[in-house]
């Protein structure tokens, strides 16, 4: 029995071939970086919302549903894609007396929400600042459920955070709400909005 063994030496790449390979890899990586950058800039694109009457302006994510018609807030944006809860950012203004404190405002919010949100309870309260102004931050949770009686959904635990800052006779309340398991993941949205928030 005869066995043929073909043994060949692999020819070394030419200079051109080697650099072509390097360039292709670099180009692919570049395209990927550009693509990711474009995607990130698209996902993190923002628009400016403002209420001149109350003197509040902030950058909010673009392509979120913007609502400036509510009675309880100056503006509110919700992520239409988020599942199962629509991530919510909102800014509201309360008229307060000259002796009001951020804690008093948070107490008022707690009293209002306790009668409206199921199982509402406050989790924590801490001092904070907003552009060097003293502020108060409150974290809370409640149960959200379907309000349309014809639809059936399991209740969700929603976690929220409010940041209150006093400005003259008005208290500006910045709010972020998210389904509890995704709360930390999307907290940067809230921080981004706070960074761009202007009270004038």
């Amino acid at each position, binding site marked *: 029995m005869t066995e043929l063994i073909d043994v060949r030496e692999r020819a070394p790449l030419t200079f051109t071939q080697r650099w072509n390979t390097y360039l292709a890899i670099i180009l692919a990586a570049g395209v990927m970086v550009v693509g990711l950058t474009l995607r990130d800039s698209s996902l993190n694109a923002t628009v400016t919302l403002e209420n001149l009457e109350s003197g509040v302006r902030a950058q909010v994510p*673009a*392509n*979120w*549903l*913007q*609502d*400036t*018609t509510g009675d309880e807030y100056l503006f509110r944006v919700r*992520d*239409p*894609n*988020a*599942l*199962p*809860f*629509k991530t919510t950012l909102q800014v509201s203004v309360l008229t307060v007396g000259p002796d009001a404190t951020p804690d008093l405002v948070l107490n008022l919010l707690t009293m209002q929400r306790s*009668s*409206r*949100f*199921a199982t509402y309870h406050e989790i924590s309260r801490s001092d904070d600042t907003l552009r060097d102004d003293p502020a108060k931050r409150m974290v809370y949770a409640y149960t959200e459920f*379907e*309000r*349309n*009686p*014809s*639809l*059936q*959904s*399991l209740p969700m635990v929603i976690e929220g955070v409010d940041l209150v800052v006093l400005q003259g006779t008005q208290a500006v309340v910045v709010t972020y709400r998210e389904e509890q398991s995704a709360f930390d993941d999307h907290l940067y949205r809230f921080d981004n909005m706070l960074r761009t928030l202007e009270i004038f």
Partner: protein
Amino acid sequence: MVAHHRFGRLILYAGILAMLTGISLPWTAARQVAAQGEPPLVELNEDVIKQATVFVMQAFLVEGQPMISCVGSGTLVSADGLILANAHSATSSDACPSDTIIIAITVRLDEPPIPTYTAEVLDASRGLDLAVLRINGYLDGREIPPGSLELPFVELGDSLNVALDDTITIVGYPNFGNDPVEVTRGTVNGFTAEARLGDRAWIRTSAVIPGTMSGGGAYNRDGQLIGIPTIAPARAGGEAVECRYLQDTNLDGRADSGDHCVPVGGFISALRPSRLARGLVRAAALGIRQGEMSITSPVTAPGGEPGFTRLFFSTRVNEVGQASNVVSSVPAGTTSLYLFFDYNQMEDGLVYELRVTVDNIQDATYSLPPVTWSGGRRGTWYIGTAGLPLRNGLYDFRLFIEGREVASRRILVGGGPADEPAFTDIIFGLLDASGNLVGTSYVLPEGSAIQARFNYRNMQTGTPWSYVWYFEGQELTRDTTAWDGDQQGTRLITAAADFLAGQYRLELYIDGVLNATADFVIAGAAESARAAVFSNFRFATEQVGGAPAGTIRADFPAGISRLYVFFDWRLLAPGTMWTRRWLVDGDVLFEVTEPWSAPPDGENFFVALSALGTLPDATYGLEISIANVTRQSVSARVGLGQLPVGVFASASGVQMTGRIIDAETQEGIPGAMFIVLNSEYSVEDFVWDQSQVLGVSLADSEGRFQIPVLLPRGTEDDPLLYSVLVQAEGYLPLSADGIAVTEDTESPVEINAALSRN
């Protein structure tokens, strides 16, 4: 990715196309049937009506445990939770004690209702047995702010357009909430007249309606609410009613005859027309209530048993609700017959009943089943039938109060037209200097002489006739003479006396038999032969010590929360029945008839309207009547002087429902967002501004969604075109333009969207 996107969009278009194709077939069928002269198909949307029908439970707490005392049905008449129901199903009484009203709603059409909300009574009329409730919280005690709900609701129709033999659909709950909402059909087989409410105080139906459906709804072919099935409330300690022992209310460990028994009543054959509820509903929707009024001393009346006296029949009722004639028999073919009677010691909410037998056989058509009394303490009342031919026979009318027979009267129907002598159409007035009767009315000024004019026919010379004048029920004067006039014509008689303010009556007899009668009121002073009773009307925003304060004018800026009307009055006897009507943009919101309880003369009597927030921009009117004769009508503008357009939401649009699924797994996508844009925007125009959005719904755990607002309809020639978007994280978004909604589009429009993963 693009291909997937296109594929998903294709599925959505296909779904919409399938839906439109599906609903186009019934339209074609409907047109063909209509072309053949058949009645149009029933178009009412039963699903929406069923969902808008709620189960009302009154409950009271015993050691912290809720106990059900009474149950009934109700109907949502606004998206934010206004409910129209029977007053007796919603207000606490001896038979139905309650601390709380619990509202159970239909979630799945084939299942019993689920207790979900609590409600409060905004306004109620015990006499009409109608109440408007507002859902104000969840069962765990959380409040629901006004305007925050988006519930299915129905629209009030025009009950005056209901005709004999019309098919109607009645919706309600057939028992204690053990069964799903029930639909029953029947026809309109008559109308029952009542004083103050006209010939259509009740709609009568052949449908078999269980007692617990009382407070539900009766609908016309367009799905509009035209009547409220109404049964008399149960009476604590009254005659035995059918009831059930449901709970151990006395906490003795047993649910037995010692516990509260929940009444179920019998069967319903009478519907309160929806027009009688329109004012209550509109006032509740606008957040307007009757405010304070002058403090007065209620007229004291001698006590005694409630009763009916002086029964007589008439075939005609004049414009102020009085009998135009008095008859003791009527010819064959008569279509209207009214039983008049005086009443005393009555009270709104008492249960009364009319049983009619024809040749000793009970006849439900002309009877009035037990219903609540709405006429106040004393006066003259009538019940009757109009526009329905009476068959020949001997009719016995028997009146009952709280199950006790109190009066009866008999009349013969049949034979040819009578040529017996008769007096008809009495009216009162004053003579001017030329001897002409002027100022004809049923309200006359104080003076020393009153003329009564009446028609007569078939009178023979020498026939004895007489007249009797009464003042406050006491005979003033009478005379009997032989007739000395023509056979037919008009005659005047004069009563000379010091006519003081108060209530008067004239009775005319022929051969000792009552032949005509009319009541009139003396009030006010004579001004050009008219009675000037009320004067110096002023509108104000406040009152201080019974005098107008704040802004006093007839044109107010927007934002006021109270509106007072002050007026002066003279020569109005205490006890005289007067009516006040509040109108907003011409629609009556409140109407109250009660005895005058202030001194005969005075200044600054006031009545008021108040709002929960601010009174909406509108023209507010007040009408005051005495003895059904309008004496004064004034109005004031607030803000723009008319209600904002669309302030009363329409229930006549199209509902959009459907399911959002994963194209691959066919599973629902919980939380996916379905957006419908206002018809003036397309997907391309949408910049994620809520003001461009008509409605949004998030898919439930099965992927089902329901847009909470109804899509307004366009016309066949100019359909409204809607655009929709569907979004969910991890899926390619879908969108579509051009979903046409016309007056013929069947509701609900169902759209199924399959999303592809990205």
